[in-house]
């Protein structure tokens, strides 16, 4: 019920093709206390070439949602409890093929997509890079994994099998010795050169000065901003159709954050990559996204175009969240805090998850799951105020007017 309505909202407003479509996704975690419904019936679309911002507070399920795109949720304790993620890669679309369900495809198909068609930038660049590999070797892995054909190009169509296997990183012990001996050595060196060219080009793309020098360095020798650039280079190396950025600037200083954000935006516009941008920072999401989805306690509360959501937030949670950000209009001590805390998600009963903290909550909110409704063009909300205003005693148009400056 919820899912079809939610998908409907985005599909109706869509004029562009989709890259991915999440439908009724549920991911639970098994704990001693019971099943934690970390993601509980989430549906949204990512359109071709757009940046979708996924915003929410700690523990709302935004990272788990993102990781499920690449099947990176550890299982157990994670359980893919339902729903699907349809993904159209540029190759299948060119061939006129349909989508694949990322949750059910075979592991080797997933290997082909991961890092190639869908890539991810992680929050802490210090932890995402292997400290024992030089930057050059680290980035080379992407090309060996997904672009071995290109690496063999300088050798022509009939490259020796051993070299082929080396470019696919399949060499055995004996082969590795043979590769060091004269007849093959020069050919292996050519592949190596080709890899280095690819890596240098990928690094140059992210505006790293003097990329050849950086390739010999190790992660600990680079600053945080530089490491994040290396990760972005790695993610974009194969020109993915979908880039998932999971809080890419949270670990960085504000001046570096601005540069990384501008870099992501610029690369996205140049390559027409679709981006799923995850953040807890509303102002950042507003800065970079075309559309925004607001998550709360494992569900999408509201989704719509960035302008609409920030100018006229529909869901009481979105409104409260925006009001809680300190602004120049606030007087000291008069911030509009949201009282209470995020509810426990262990075997939850049907209800609006926000009803314990919502200023407008009525009986129905604690008993029935709100339906996802299309409120306005391309703007959907899951709230009883828009469904059964009579029950709550407040009509949508009676909500206090809200304005944050927009485009």
């Amino acid at each position, binding site marked *: 019920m919820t899912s079809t309505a939610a998908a409907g909202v985005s599909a109706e407003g869509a004029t562009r093709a989709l890259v991915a479509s999440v439908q009724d996704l549920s991911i639970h975690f098994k704990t001693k206390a019971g099943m934690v419904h970390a993601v509980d019936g989430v549906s949204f679309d990512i359109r071709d070439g757009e940046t979708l911002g996924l915003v929410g507070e700690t523990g709302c399920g935004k990272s788990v949602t993102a990781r499920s795109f690449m099947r990176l949720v550890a299982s157990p304790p994670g359980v893919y409890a339902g729903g699907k993620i349809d993904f159209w890669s540029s190759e299948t679309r060119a061939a006129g093929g349909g989508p694949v369900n990322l949750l059910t495809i075979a592991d080797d198909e997933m290997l082909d997509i991961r890092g190639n068609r869908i890539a991810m930038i992680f929050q802490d660049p210090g932890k995402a890079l292997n400290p024992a590999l030089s930057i050059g070797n680290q980035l080379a892995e992407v090309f060996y994994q997904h672009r071995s054909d290109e690496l063999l190009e300088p050798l022509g169509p009939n490259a020796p099998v051993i070299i082929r296997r080396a470019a696919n990183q399949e060499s055995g012990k004996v082969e590795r010795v043979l590769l060091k001996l004269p007849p093959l050595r020069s050919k292996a060196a050519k592949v190596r050169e080709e890899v280095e060219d690819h890596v240098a080009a990928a690094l140059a793309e992210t505006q790293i000065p*003097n990329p050849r020098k950086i390739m010999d360095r190790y992660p600990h020798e680079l600053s945080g901003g530089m490491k994040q650039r290396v990760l972005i280079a790695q993610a974009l190396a194969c020109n993915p159709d979908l880039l998932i950025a999971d809080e890419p600037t949270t670990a960085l*200083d*504000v001046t570096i954050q*601005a540069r990384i954000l501008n870099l992501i935006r610029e690369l996205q516009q140049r390559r027409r990559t679709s981006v799923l941008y995850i953040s807890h920072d509303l102002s950042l999401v507003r*800065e970079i996204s075309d559309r925004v989805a607001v998550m709360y306690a494992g569900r999408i509360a509201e989704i719509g175009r960035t*302008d609409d959501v920030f100018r006229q937030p529909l869901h009481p949670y979105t409104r409260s969240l925006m009001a*809680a950000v*300190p602004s120049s209009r*606030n007087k000291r001590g008069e911030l509009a805090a949201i*009282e209470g805390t995020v509810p426990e998600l262990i075997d939850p009963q049907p209800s609006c998850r926000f009803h314990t903290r919502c200023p407008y909550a009525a009986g129905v909110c604690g008993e029935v799951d709100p339906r996802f409704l299309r409120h306005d063009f391309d703007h959907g909300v899951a709230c009883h105020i828009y469904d059964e205003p009579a029950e709550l005693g407040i009509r949508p148009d009676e909500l206090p007017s809200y304005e944050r400056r927009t485009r």
Partner: protein
Amino acid sequence: MTSVRAQSLEREGSVGDRPVMTLIDVEKHFPIKDGVLQKVVGHVKAVDGVSLEIRRGETLGLVGESGCGKTTLGRCISGITAPTGGGIYFRLSDVDRAALEDILATPGKERTPEQRKRMERIESRHLITALTGDAWRAYRRNCQVVFQDAFSSLNPRQLVKDIVGRPLRIHKEASGAELTERVVSLLESVGMGRQHLFRYPHQFSGGQRQRISIARALALDPEFIVLDEPTSALDVSVQAQILNLLHELQRDRGLTYLFISHDLGVVKLMSDRIAVMYLGEVVEQGTATELFERPRHPYTEALLAANPDLDADVDKEIEGLEGTVPDPANPPEGCRFHTRCPVATPICGWEVDDAVTWLSVETNLLDAMTAVERRSNFDATLAFADDGSAEAVGKAMTAGSVPPAMAPALESVSVDGSKVLLRFLPVPPVELEEVEPGHVTSCVLHTSRRREL
């Protein structure tokens, strides 16, 4: 109880009528040790000559990027680490301060016996590293800290009752049933209650843990609290709760805050005055509105330009800064920000390191470099493996591609065989200067050194 009341009485008066903390040229240098004998080979200048004054009842905001020394400064002020230079004075009156500055201005040998005696007396009463007995205890009671990560600053094996009651027990304020009641009233003042007494820190959410930290800081009814990024680990909605609580407590109890944060929006909201730190130094200081509306330092401007603001115009692009923060063990000459400054001038402190950095980032010419002989930061000889590379470097340094701000500061470049001699015009260190009442900056574009341009 009586002692607390007596203290509150002593504290009556208007906001800002007297200083609570006075910092004069505070330095904290951490030694870098190397080799088998752990010889000291250098110092990380985490805090390098900071002078500040925090007056009663006000909130001083301290902002800067990570690694600029703001947390170290907070730790020095709260007495967790001792500064390696300068002095931190507690409740130093304006009269004493004037006298002290007068004495400090005279070189050690020329001081008269009266001056020495006066200085000794001031230091034994106010200098926090020289306090003993009752004066020390009074300082410890009155200066408390709330840390960023409430989880690691609360003992996981203690109950809330023990955590919040510990300061009271140490200072022999209360025991037994009275202690429990005092803890309950402290918990109530931060929006918690009796039901939380017998729980462990892990049973609370982040916001509640921070409330417990605040209750502990309030236990001895202090005058001054160092808030070291109290909300940066929290979500926006909870952050708002904590900020409101902090303000309420300040209003009701007449607290003085040092609010350390990297979040400009939060600092602006909470602070009366703001000091901006960069690489161990305060580069600008002023009232919150003044600093945000008319920043007088390019670094402050850069921070503001990079800060995404929910209220700003959407079309306003956020802008970042080039380069990285220099090594605090070897901070740049002149203005420390000149290596990343978008409006740097020739008198900002260009030195040999800047030329070397520029050459290594923009060109490959330094690959053949074998040694650097440094006579000062402004004067050095670069030795190369062959004459050709030396000549190429000499050419590059005189060509038009040298950054326009650096070029006029270059006094001479001469190539001598395989060696290149670089000499920059030496510049004095920048000084903080008052540009408007209560607004100080060290940027040469705004201070009296503007005339040199």
